[in-house]
């Protein structure tokens, strides 16, 4: 695969982002107040910006990769990411905007007036942000690796540098326009190739995607291994090429017998047309027919895993640190609702695409099942299915879109993380404090990329959602709709739900997978967070924050009443 066009596309996106960031710096200097300027943003622009920031590495490459490997159970990721916005719309959008909060700690303080609640919310927001930033950097590493063969850390470093430079210069923060543009770029980058992929599939005879056979190579395929990989062979295959298999040097035609094998890093094996694809041990045994059925993934407790994922994504969206910031740019609560409604539509259109990549990948890029780089399916598929220059250009388009996804989500996360760090942790005021915090905010996840195993990008994002759903979601929902929540209850609930989820997430990431109750903790941590917050609040009725009724007026009264209570927003 020639990668020149792909590299050009990635560099164009990176430089374009830097340029617009620098331009935005000039604009935001001449605009006296960034927030006032933002409030003239219409719901359509705002919704595009939210979509641009929200569609991350997980959405662009991760979902397709998981569907490719595990089948329709993974469709719950896009469904949940979208349903999260419906829940956000119905339960928090307008009151959140009316609270005037710029970050989640701001909301905690506005609602509870307590520095302790604010501090706990800050720590959790940081943890969630880092868990979310990590897969963005990993995804970037994967993209550059797929395009150029560069080591994984190069892409992660590139994204980290571009985003840090941008955030430090202050450009990204002010430019709703950049994020809005990124949404349409991503939609184009993923939707245009789909048209050509489907046409190519039709032209190749529209082969059945759900036949009763195991995935097979449809042409002679060279598979390169960049790390030691343990694979399972379901049907014996004869391969050529050279490398180290099960500790022995092999060269020339060798038969790979049924069973488990390890293939050393640096091996290049050539498989003939029609051979059954060996699979990485972490991917369960499935024919294309059973792969296409729900709840057949071969995991233990599939129903638990699906429901845990549903709970995490449906409730976690509202607790993500970079989501709440965007609501501040709405002029009022009513506009916040309308914006959210448009976001629902924009996300729905985008999420029609990844499953198509995942399904076609079973036919055209089955070797990814063997290397385990399933997240690369979106990047590899266009140049594999469409021959010649057209395929290379489509591949470049997808790569550029993927990079836009990493950049925009990371920027949004970095801005909110740096804000929390500088205000609540380092207590450094002013531009300098913000810049120091930005560097710190990126160093932590960059360091973590060295420690983690090969966890799929979308799975790691799922963990960030689980922590958000079990800690900050109860704070928002109960805080907005109940006057009985006390400061003690709020802290207890956030810790009871958030700490187990965070620990489970870290254990899973460092071990590179594992027990389903730890890998998908939301089904037990979310109820824990809600119940503890409510029960402890009922037990400590004297700790209801003073002036709670006043806050409730602020959160819920429509703006057009002209209440004095809402004047300072």
């Amino acid at each position, binding site marked *: 695969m020639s990668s020149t066009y792909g590299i050009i596309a990635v560099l164009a996106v990176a430089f374009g982002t830097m340029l617009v960031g620098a331009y935005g710096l000039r604009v935001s200097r001449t605009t006296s107040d960034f927030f006032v300027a933002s409030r003239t943003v219409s719901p359509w622009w705002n919704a595009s910006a939210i979509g641009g920031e929200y569609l991350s590495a997980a959405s662009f490459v991760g979902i397709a990769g998981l569907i490719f490997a595990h089948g329709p159970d993974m469709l719950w990721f*896009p469904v949940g990411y979208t349903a999260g916005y419906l829940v956000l719309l119905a339960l928090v959008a307008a009151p959140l905007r009316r609270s005037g909060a710029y970050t989640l700690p701001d909301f905690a303080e506005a609602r509870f007036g307590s520095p302790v609640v604010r501090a706990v919310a800050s720590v959790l927001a940081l943890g969630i942000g880092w868990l979310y930033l990590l897969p963005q950097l990993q995804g970037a590493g994967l993209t550059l690796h797929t395009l150029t063969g560069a080591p994984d850390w190069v892409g992660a470093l590139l994204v980290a540098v571009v985003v840090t430079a941008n955030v430090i210069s202050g450009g990204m923060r002010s430019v709703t326009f950049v994020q809005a543009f990124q949404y349409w770029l991503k939609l184009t980058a993923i939707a245009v190739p789909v048209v050509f992929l489907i046409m190519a599939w039709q032209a190749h005879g529209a082969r059945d995607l759900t036949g009763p056979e195991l995935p097979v190579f449809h042409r002679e395929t060279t598979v390169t291994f960049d790390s030691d990989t343990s694979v399972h062979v379901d049907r014996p295959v004869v391969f050529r090429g050279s490398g180290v298999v099960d500790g022995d040097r092999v060269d020339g035609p060798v038969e790979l017998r049924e069973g488990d094998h390890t293939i050393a890093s640096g091996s290049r094996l050539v498989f003939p047309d029609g051979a059954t694809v060996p699979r990485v041990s972490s991917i369960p045994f499935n024919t294309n027919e059973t792969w296409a059925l729900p709840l057949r993934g071969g995991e233990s407790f599939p129903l638990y895993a699906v429901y845990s994922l549903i709970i995490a994504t449906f409730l976690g969206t509202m607790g993500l640190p970079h989501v709440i910031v965007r609501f501040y740019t709405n002029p009022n609560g009513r506009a916040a609702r309308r914006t959210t409604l448009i976001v629902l539509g924009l996300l729905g259109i985008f999420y029609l695409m990844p499953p198509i990549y995942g399904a076609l990948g079973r036919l055209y890029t089955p070797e990814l099942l063997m290397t385990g780089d399933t997240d690369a399916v979106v990047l590899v598929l266009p140049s594999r299915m469409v021959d010649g220059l057209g395929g290379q250009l489509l591949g470049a388009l997808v790569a550029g879109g993927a990079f836009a996804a990493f950049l925009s989500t990371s920027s949004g996360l970095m801005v909110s993380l740096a804000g929390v760090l500088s205000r609540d942790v380092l207590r450094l005021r002013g531009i300098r404090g913000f810049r120091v915090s930005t560097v710190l905010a990126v160093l932590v996840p960059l360091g973590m990329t060295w420690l983690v195993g090969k966890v799929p990008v979308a799975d790691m994002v799922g963990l960030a959602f689980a922590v958000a759903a079990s800690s900050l979601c109860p704070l928002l929902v109960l805080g907005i709709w109940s006057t009985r929540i006390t400061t003690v209850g709020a802290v207890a609930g956030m810790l009871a739900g958030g700490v187990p989820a965070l620990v489970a997430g870290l254990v899973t990431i460092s071990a590179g997978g594992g027990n389903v109750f730890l890998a998908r903790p939301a089904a037990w941590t979310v109820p824990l967070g809600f119940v503890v917050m409510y029960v402890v609040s009922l037990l400590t009725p004297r700790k209801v924050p003073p002036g709670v009724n006043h806050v409730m007026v602020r959160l819920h009264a429509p703006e057009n009443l002209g209440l004095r209570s809402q004047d300072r927003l």
Partner: protein
Amino acid sequence: MTSPQRPHTQRVVVTSPRTRAPRAPRPYPATREIDEQSELGAVYMRSLIRAQRRLGLLLCAVVCGSVAGLPLVFTLVPAVTAQRLFGLPLPWLLLGGLVFPVFVLAGWFYVRQAERGEREFAELVERS
């Protein structure tokens, strides 16, 4: 031209002893009741919050509940998963396509109802 002949004619302020008589109500809008955190204001706000909370929870329960019921249906009635519609397996069609317009419609319905609730509240408050 002052006439000293009529020194007894002068204006006298007469106040009525009937201070408890009904008088025209002073305008005291409900928005001020709300602002000043009076009992009445709190009642107004509670009614609004309760109505909006019921709407939000109901929407989430109906839409998310029915979508989240699908895995259970797939487990209990496996025959459903093998069905095909428009050439696509039913689970793929539902989760990969049809749920998204449902979410948008539900959101549109919610926005309409929530804004109507706020409008009625505003009318109630301004009328009183």
